[in-house]
């Protein structure tokens, strides 16, 4: 009994979804979930089609991905050494892509329980996409969060205030080129313990 075979029949309407989106659909990928990528300028109208034509009324989440690998790796560099060379080629995930940033959302049909993950490229120069808060009211907060964490603008959003950080915070924490400072100031002891263990060889404490 594998997970994949059990969840496979959930997506029964792939062709239907594709037909409804028409030429707005750029690419799709179907495994145990259905990934769709739509044109940037058709982001909002695709969401509207999904909701009104295909009955995806339940809004699960909206977020973004920064596909550029982090120049800091996994934060395990020695700060006293020059940073090693890293591969920073941008490679998008399922359903492809052409830009560094992508927004993605997941919506569900509450009757048939079919869900889709829908992605769209965010142009590198403008870093903005249409807001879908008037299609799915719940997207309001998710777009605020995404704006705060990735610096992606949402055209037509009523109020892109920060949710978590102070308004004068500089930088966008979830971008890959935003360093995780806690890992920068002190070498990560995960690989080699740099501090002597109490009771170890370096410890003068008595065994009495």
């Amino acid at each position, binding site marked *: 009994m594998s*997970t994949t075979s059990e969840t496979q029949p959930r997506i029964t309407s792939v062709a239907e979804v594709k037909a409804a989106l028409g030429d707005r659909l750029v690419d799709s990928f179907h495994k145990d979930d259905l*990934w769709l990528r739509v044109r940037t300028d058709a982001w909002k109208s695709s969401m509207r089609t999904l909701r009104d034509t295909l009955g995806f009324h*339940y809004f699960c989440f909206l977020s973004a991905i920064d596909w550029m690998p982090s120049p800091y790796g996994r934060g395990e560099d020695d700060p006293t050494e020059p940073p090693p060379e890293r591969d920073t080629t941008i*490679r998008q995930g*399922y359903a492809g892509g052409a830009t560094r940033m992508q927004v993605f959302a997941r919506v569900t049909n509450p009757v048939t329980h079919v869900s889709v993950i829908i992605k769209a490229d965010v142009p590198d120069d403008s870093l903005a996409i249409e807001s879908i808060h008037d299609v799915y009211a719940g997207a309001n907060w998710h777009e605020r969060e995404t704006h705060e964490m990735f610096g992606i603008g949402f055209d037509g959003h009523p109020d892109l205030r920060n949710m978590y*950080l102070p308004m004068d915070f500089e930088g966008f924490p979830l971008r890959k080129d935003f360093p995780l400072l806690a890992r920068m100031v002190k070498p990560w002891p995960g690989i080699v313990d740099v501090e002597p263990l109490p009771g170890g060889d370096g410890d003068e404490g008595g065994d009495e």
Partner: protein
Amino acid sequence: MSLTDRVLGDRQRLAYIASQAADARLNVELETEGMTLNIGPQHPATHGTLRIIARLDGEQVVWAEPSCGYMHRGYEKLAEVRTYPQVTSLVNRIDWLGSFANEVPFILAAEKLMEVEAPPRAQHIRTILFELSRIANVSLFLGDLGVQMGAITPVFFAFRDREYVLNLIEGATGGRFHPNFDRIGGLKDDLPKGWIAETKAVMKKLRNFCDQIEDLLFGNEIFQSRTRGIGVIPRDIALQYGLSGANLRASGVDWDLRRDHPLPMAWNKADWKVWTHPDGDSFARCWVRLQETRESTRIVDQLLDTIPSGPIMAKVPKIIKVPEGEAWVSTENPLGEMGYYVVSRGELGPFRVKIRSASFNNISVAPWALRGVYVPDIITILASLYFILGDIDR
């Protein structure tokens, strides 16, 4: 037929109209002498540090918004520099009242990418512990509910009986609040000796607790008048704000991920029922949670009888590298749909983890739900929406 035209109960319709009337008044009477009321960040009714800013017109709320961020710990960023097994100790702390339930969807997402599956015994024990954390979580909600309305007694029952459940979780996992017990491919340990009999006894106590709460609170006239018809969230609003769990089922949507989204877990091996309520008000949300706690004790009871024998760990390498891909797994957590979108690049740690927590969506409906209500009802509505601060901010 649009969803708004769907038949709503009279009470629902009236409250719906009232909130729209408040909205209209905001537009007309912009020059009214309003008052801005700040609730929190430290307030007993906010279960932590949530600040609510409400603009009032007399006793009525014209506009209200929760202000989050006092508990933001940046788990999505932290997960990017951790290995897969390390992430569970982070996500444990998202919804701290039902910690084990936070680990499961992440582990399942990693297993999905690795195409391994936990052996049946591990799946079974996972499900039992998952339901135990639901009981521990929701029983505290049921007790705390009274406190918001001035009833002090139920919370003592809740703390007493939750203690039994926490003892069980501690007995099996070693951690009362943060078990960190789930592993990719199975579980850390098997159940200790005598645990099953003890659990059965505790489940009986918890059913008594539910009866007690029902007698003390749900039949109480004050409780009913404070919750019935208050904070009505119609079905279409609940869906488009992404409400999940009991909040969604209390608005009449018959949808439970445990039943409707098959996962390698053992829920389908027990006979249980998904409870819904047509009203969508505060009372409905509390009532659905009460029934779910009862149902959870029944699930645990049945699963305890049918634990299969066998190993508790599948064969997984010591150093876990997850193949390239993307996976989404969500489960029906005590607070609602909790899911992880894991992007892997074939490394030791995830490339990106999007944590979809239930409370974030559940509380995002608050500005809508609080419009037009009276000040004391802010507390009951927020209490009945049931959020954990760590689950909003992550």
